[in-house]
């Protein structure tokens, strides 16, 4: 990227410090900056920040949280900073934010602003779609990064699919027939509800195998020996389901690989 371009973006927007505005000079957050610009603004879509007046004859630069600001001494309104100075200012703003918000994560703090005008603006097209007599919209318009914004329905779909997989494992775990046992033995006879399978301790050295084993290796050992069946390939659906069930039964137990 051309240095001049970078510089002008930095002066436009403090948002540049979190890497959002490098390729997007008209980014909505850019409109929160203190420098006048040609990009049109709208009360509906943009948060207008009340930037404090300068007390020292310089220019006040505000972070896009709308609260944190510092004054750059000797910088006249509309005057660009040097590259080095702009970098220093953005770092100082972010440091100040961290001091004022100890223990907070920046991305989370920006997400958790229920009353922010940004989220109100996001819903504006929906609100406008309904006339005054209609009830307020209940569904939020999907926001945020394409790969990181999910709806309640997404979580329900994931949970349903995961539970199905685990339930399949449970069925196999309890079925000597599905396990291919030649003597009518199933896993649950020694491991009721998958007890004493300690899946959280893998990988670990297994004396029976005289090598380091994964959980699936041990499942296969059990299938071959006490169960008296044929071992399953590591990508066999049955083995995958068994592993899923055994792990699911130990939900919440900390991983502790290599433990004996």
């Amino acid at each position, binding site marked *: 990227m051309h240095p001049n371009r970078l510089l002008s973006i930095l002066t436009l927007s403090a948002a540049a410090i979190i890497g959002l505005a490098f390729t997007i000079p008209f980014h909505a957050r850019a409109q929160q900056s203190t420098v006048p610009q040609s990009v049109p603004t709208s009360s509906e879509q943009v948060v207008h920040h009340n930037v404090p007046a300068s007390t020292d004859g310089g220019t006040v630069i505000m972070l896009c949280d709308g609260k944190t600001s510092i004054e750059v001494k000797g910088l006249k309104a509309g005057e660009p900073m040097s590259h080095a100075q702009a970098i220093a200012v953005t770092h100082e703003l972010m440091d100040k934010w961290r001091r004022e918000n100890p223990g907070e994560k920046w991305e989370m703090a920006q997400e958790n602003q229920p009353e922010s005008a940004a989220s109100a603006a996001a819903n504006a097209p929906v609100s406008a779609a309904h006339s005054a007599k209609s009830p307020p919209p209940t569904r939020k318009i999907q926001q945020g990064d394409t790969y990181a914004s999910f709806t309640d*329905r997404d979580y329900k779909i994931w949970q349903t699919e995961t539970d199905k997989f685990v339930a399949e494992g449970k069925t196999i775990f309890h079925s000597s027939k599905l396990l291919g046992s030649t003597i009518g033995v199933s896993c649950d006879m020694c491991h009721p509800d998958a007890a004493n399978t300690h899946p959280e301790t893998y990988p670990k050295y297994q004396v029976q195998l005289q090598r380091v084993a994964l959980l699936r290796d041990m499942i296969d050992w059990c299938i071959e020996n006490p169960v008296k069946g044929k071992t399953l390939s590591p990508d066999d659906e049955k083995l995958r389901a068994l592993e899923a069930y055994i792990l699911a039964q130990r939900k919440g137990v900390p991983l502790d690989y290599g433990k004996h």
Partner: protein
Amino acid sequence: MARSKLILWGVVTLAIFAFSSRALAQANQPLAQPKSTNQVGFPTDLYHWVIPPDNPLTPAKVSLGKELFFDSRLSADDKESCSTCHDPQKGFTDQLPTSMGIHAQFGQRNAPSVLNAMFNTLQFWDGRAPTLEAQIQGPITNPIEMGMASMDAEVAKLRAIPEYAADFQKAFGGQITFHDIERAIASYERTQVAFDSPFDRFLAGDQKAISDQAKRGWALYNGQGRCMSCHGVNPTQPLFTDFKFHNIGVSAHKSDFVPLARKALALLSQKGGLQEIDRLAIQTDMSGLGRFLVTKQPHDIGGFRTMGLRNLLVTEPYFHDGSQATLWDVIDHYNKGGVQNPYLDGGIVPLGLSESQEDDLVAFLATLTSPEYTKQAQKEYQEQFKRSRTDRPQRDEAAAMGLSGRNGPGFSGPFGDIGPGEAAMRENPADLGGRPVDSLK
């Protein structure tokens, strides 16, 4: 007064007689009837989650909704019904690149199918409406689609049609309102579910339901073709989409994103709301901005909804602008890594698919056809296959195999194969707009 009313009735009756006969014929076709949910692969859990609690399905609402869906009196000139662009005979689309509305005017977007639309998290190509109900006023009031001045005008128009008074009374227990028009049409649309395809039977355990070629295609769909990443599918959610919005470079062919985005922001700051977004999406060159028109977020520039893939042989042509005629063209587009632009989704990369692999993928896609469209889909498959042997406008073998474009020589920029290439990095990517990658050399 009485006399003018009489004349009005005469005109209305004539209009009904003259213009609604085609729509009525459509409404009586088997393909227009509400579908059974007893289909292989039908997502029962999901179905119950997505029926809105404030608009449960009832036979009266569905029947009224069907009447409205096929009634061209819903448009300003009594010529366009919902079914004009969402024709059951054509998989509830019009099989046109972009749709033709009132006074033979064409919009900028391809008509999406009504089939399984009830499962969408958001409606329209850019998700500008949250529900089927909220979506309905878009086409009705768009000046080049059905051309009604407002939903209030629509209510007034329908209140003047005597048969509807009783139907609305029966379905909703009151007189015609704007929300009840929406609820009725949405209810009918929620009966248009299409599963039961050979692939559904394959997933249910019938190994013979699809051919070996289609099985190879399914493996490519999950693997080298990377289709599954966005066109996600599982038994709980068997819709072949992530319901998200991605820039795959389709509108980069003809849109210079940055100036267009500035223009759109300027207009939307003066006047917001669904109707204005609808106008920009259907009637202007800002259509190519896609999801950005709704969210105004830069990462949504040129992003369009991932379409589900069921029955796609009867919903051709493809993409939001209907710019691709065959499934081979669509796969060629992905195979070469889309069309380079600064907002291209990071998941769009060259795929290195061979000719026979593309054939396998199309064979798999053809198995997503519901039984009622089998014949049509077979015919369309043959036509597309024939065309694909000679006519391949999107094919770029070198780009697909990584021998040119951003992975090729001269494009080893600082971000490797996820960057726009060395040449592009000399300039600010935002200044490049939607120019194709060739012009960067």
